[in-house]
């Protein structure tokens, strides 16, 4: 077996919480005992109920936060901070509104001190790669949600990180756009051979994209189960969602997740007094809708 590209070793992350605000303790455990290897070039998806620490996991990997215990290793070296060997794509795009699409894509290259001429060429190349060749001079507010996310992806690819971290990047998009972008992301992944860690709350999305799907527990976030997705679901058949195998895998993930959603709702109801039954039903439906 090849060495892991990314390795989480017994990672635990606590946050200080304002005491007295409905919390009995003054620290909140977001992640606990997370041990996980991501293979080079792998497309890994992570699903879990909301508040399970998915985004915390990504922050640790991105170097935006440090684990309370344990280590996060990239190529065998501990992650010490943010760097351009990892690109992050956020749900809310995080494009700079005062920069055009091309200038946004060139941002990371500017930071890296790449010469202006090469910046322009690379920006044009990656714009073309995400299918936005004619939109170089548009400002973000002139682009649709799907286009903004394409620009954001292009921006993360432009400085050529080896790992792409994606935090529910398609959650804010409509269903059609989301499916289109899923297909394109797979195409980009095959072409560029990046290692991708993709966080989602959609079961379908996790299965369609991931070679492996990591299911997380509700708070504190632990790894509940890791499913290998059969290669057949990633062959270039049309509409993999219609295959019986897809339905079977989907049901497996759904069952794993439902337990966690119920647990999360119960603990929330204990703390906050939300009507548990209705809330559970709602979030089970939210999970299933994608």
């Amino acid at each position, binding site marked *: 077996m090849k060495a892991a590209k990314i390795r989480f070793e017994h990672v635990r992350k606590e946050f200080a919480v304002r005491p007295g605000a409905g919390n009995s303790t003054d620290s909140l455990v977001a992640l606990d005992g997370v041990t996980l290897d991501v293979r080079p070039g792998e497309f890994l998806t992570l699903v879990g109920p909301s508040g399970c620490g998915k985004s915390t996991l990504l922050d640790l990997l991105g170097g935006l936060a440090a684990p309370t215990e344990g280590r996060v290793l990239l190529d065998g070296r501990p992650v010490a901070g943010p760097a351009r060997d990892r690109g992050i794509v956020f749900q809310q795009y995080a494009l700079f509104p005062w920069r055009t699409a091309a200038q946004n894509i060139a*941002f990371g290259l500017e930071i890296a001190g790449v010469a202006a001429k090469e910046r322009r060429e690379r920006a044009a190349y990656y714009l073309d790669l995400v299918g936005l060749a004619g939109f170089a001079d548009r400002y973000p507010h002139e682009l649709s949600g799907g286009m903004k996310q394409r620009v954001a992806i292009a921006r993360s690819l432009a400085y050529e990180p080896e790992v792409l971290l994606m935090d529910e990047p398609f959650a804010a998009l409509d269903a059609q756009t989301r499916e289109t972008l899923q297909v394109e992301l797979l195409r980009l992944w095959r072409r560029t051979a990046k290692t991708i860690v993709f966080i989602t709350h959609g079961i379908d999305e996790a299965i369609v994209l991931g070679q492996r799907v990591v299911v997380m527990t509700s708070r504190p976030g632990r790894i509940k189960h890791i499913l290998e997705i059969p290669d057949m679901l990633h062959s270039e058949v049309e509409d993999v969602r219609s295959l019986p195998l897809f339905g079977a895998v989907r049901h497996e993930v759904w069952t794993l997740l439902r337990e966690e959603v119920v647990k999360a709702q119960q603990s929330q109801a204990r703390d906050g007094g939300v009507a548990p039954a209705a809330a559970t039903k709602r979030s089970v439906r939210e999970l299933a809708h994608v």
Partner: protein
Amino acid sequence: MSSVESSLDVFRARRGTSAFGAEHRYARPRWLLVFGPRLIRFSRRSALVIALLALWEVAPRIGWADPAFLPPFSEVLNAGFELAVNGQLYEHVGASLFRAFGGFVIAVIFIVPLGLAIGWYRRLGDTLNQLIEVLRNTAPLALLPVFILLLGIGEVSKISMVAYSCAWPLLLNTIAAVRQVDPLLIKSARTMGATPLQLFVKVFLPASLPTIFVGVRLASAAAMLVLVASEMVGAKAGLGYLIIYGQYSFLIPQMYFGILAITTIGLTANGALEGLERRFTRWKPTSSA
């Protein structure tokens, strides 16, 4: 005139026979198609101002107001014309603009960087916060005698007074601008490996610009306000002086013209700053879109 009337006829005709509207549309003169909508928009926006000026003209003439205290608008303009011919207008406007612009520019040059620093270094902000609160709640005009006592009645005290009163809106808006930068954009830039300096120059500065501009425009209004007041106290030139001198010497039309000149300068400054703001923040979605 006649062409306007005839086009009005076309309008009436259209309205009266809406069923045949399509035919009449071709009868409308071409210039009206181009300028008509603009003319209508202009008159709708300016209607109240024009009505106010008309009232100003008419009221003293028909005895609603005492012409000695409120001369008709045309007489005020006439007085302004005389001031322009004998060169006094140039002197007063020049003196006022020099003080207002001088104080404003000094404030922008020193206060915007200070505000950026306070917003950026939280500790500096904590240290200065109380002092800022105390000073900004002291109305600048209340300090006018202090400025005169310390700096005399010359240009220095007036320009400092303007700079001082410009400083507060600039400072507060600049600090707020820096602190309101979207944390996600900061996070995003950090993940791309931006150093603190790069973060400041490439994220904080451009993101703060619109809010800083709000401060700049408030400052320009503050500059005019304080300028006029300080020119009314111990000055030998300037529009504030013209106004107060006009009142004392019973040159009432001149006094009103001085007031109008202040308004005009204020409007022009605001328009110029808006234009500048649009140039710098072209990336922003327009409010009409």
